[in-house]
């Protein structure tokens, strides 16, 4: 229990540091938002009122603490572009990105493990070698390029979906999922290829271990050795990798949302950066970074839980 408490402590500290760093980064940007927003309407009184509304008073540490207190209670500040609370600007978008990411992550899971096991099982066969080469290429294809190819093939040629015509949840659950399927697949393909590759090398590494020889000496075939002995060992690093890749997938969706015109926080982030709407950008950056930190923490705990050597000692 002590280690979990310690890890949770580190988690909170890292979250604090990450938020501080992100906050600081957006503070060094030159220019005064108040002056910019008010433009020709500028009067000292109005400026003071607006400054108060935007939470821009006081020195940097005071602003950070005020922002942090707001952040943890769901008050993310006011968007410069919309002059609305950031929470309202993001409304619904977070769920879209979450759905996209989880769907994509499930696809990675679905493809990578059977593929990795098959590649390791038939590693000397012609077919597996060809598949390994194709896998190598898939690892190198950026998700947004796959997205563009999908838009062309499934959207324009086969007309399985209408590119740019996102179906909201509220309208149709399955329609929404159907639209998100292609961007999710675009993000998943290179990630699944990498995961499969990791699993293959993990299995190959385990095959060199002494316990594998013992397993053979009992009369196991190669496939039985892989299935009953090696796989559970080889999956340990893969589980960690998969847990951490959810954060990568969210980051990947920033770009893929753009390709498929999916109204998620990724598109909002890009738009807010282009429009220099920093409260929105900061909020999204911190949410994603916090997710990364949290997933690393979760990966750590999951490994602890499934590895009896750590769990029981």
């Amino acid at each position: 229990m002590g280690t979990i408490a310690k890890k949770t402590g580190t988690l909170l500290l890292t979250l604090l540091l990450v938020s501080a760093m992100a906050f600081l980064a957006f503070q060094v940007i030159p220019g005064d938002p108040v002056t910019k927003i008010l433009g020709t309407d500028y009067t000292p009184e109005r400026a003071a009122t607006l400054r108060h509304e935007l939470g821009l008073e006081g020195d940097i540490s005071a602003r950070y603490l005020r922002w942090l207190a707001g952040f943890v209670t769901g008050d993310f500040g006011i968007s410069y572009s919309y002059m609305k609370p950031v929470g309202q600007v993001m409304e619904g978008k977070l769920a879209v990105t979450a759905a996209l990411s989880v769907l994509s992550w499930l696809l990675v899971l679905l493809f990578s493990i059977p593929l990795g096991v098959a590649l390791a099982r038939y590693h000397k066969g012609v077919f597996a070698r060809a598949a390994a080469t194709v896998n190598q290429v898939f690892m190198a294809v950026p998700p947004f390029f796959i997205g563009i190819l999908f838009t062309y093939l499934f959207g324009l040629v086969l007309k399985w979906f209408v590119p740019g015509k996102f179906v909201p949840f509220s309208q149709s659950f399955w329609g929404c999922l159907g639209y998100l399927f292609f961007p999710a697949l675009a993000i998943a393909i290179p990630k699944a290829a990498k995961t499969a590759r990791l699993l293959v090398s993990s299995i190959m590494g385990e095959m060199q271990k002494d316990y594998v020889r013992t397993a053979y000496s009992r009369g196991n075939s190669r496939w039985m050795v892989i299935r009953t002995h090696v796989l559970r060992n080889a999956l340990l690093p893969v589980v960690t990798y998969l847990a951490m890749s959810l954060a990568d997938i969210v980051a990947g969706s920033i770009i893929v949302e753009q390709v498929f015109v999916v109204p998620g926080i990724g598109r909002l982030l890009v738009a807010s950066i282009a429009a220099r709407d920093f409260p929105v950008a900061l909020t999204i950056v911190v949410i994603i970074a916090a997710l990364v930190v949290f997933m690393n923490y979760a990966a750590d705990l999951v490994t602890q839980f499934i590895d009896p050597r750590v769990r029981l000692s």
Partner: protein
Amino acid sequence: MIDTHNKTFRAGAVITGVMLAIILVGLVWTPYDPNAMNGAAKMASPSFAHLLGTDNFGRDIFSRVVQGAGATFLIAAVSVAAGLVIGVVLGGLTGWYGGWVDELLMRLNDTLTAFPSILLALVLIAIFGSGKYNIIFALGLLFVPTFARIVRMEVAKQKELDYVRSAQLMGVGSMRILFVHILPNIVPVLLSTIAISFNNAVLAEASMSYLGVGVQPPDPSLGRMLNEAQSYLLSAPWYALSSGGAIVLLVLGFGLLSEGLGGETDA
């Protein structure tokens, strides 16, 4: 020291070599002027006259891809080189001297890894603005911790070895030991990291330019071309295929090189 005879490494070397050769030739000669518009040959499909066809302004796509790949390559190479130099010096010094500066930098490092590279690059672009040089700056900054961490770890390890100890006893100066004696021993480890970082740089640059917050017109870039190409997918699919294909080849080549060097392939 480095096994360069395995198939993976050779495949990577061939792909990278061919890409590099085309890029180098492209610096002095391309079949057409990449920016020359030709109203008579808009959206022409690939032919002998235009290997990869033409775009919406009748510009030769092959020439544009060569130029774009060159620009992307240059941005990636310069930013990795910048990150490498600063990272090596920083990591070397902190690994050698240790102390609170070391502690502080490593804490900072751990925190930075919480931001996916594309996110960090976007933040830096938000702060410093878009454009070619800012991209190089942002990516360079991104790679400093990566290299610093590896060099620091290796230096701390090598510091304890006999050859370093004997050099110290013979009165060789710290800086000389660090950069003349230790550094060459770290090169093999660094090489595969350089290849991965290069790939990260290519992908980050392409992504940001695709999003419109990276390289700005009139500077060429594969990512920006993909963005343009997306509008003409139905009439000129070869435009997107060629510019995306060039990115894939660049990344694939370096990915194979890295794996051949015994490193990881993950971006």
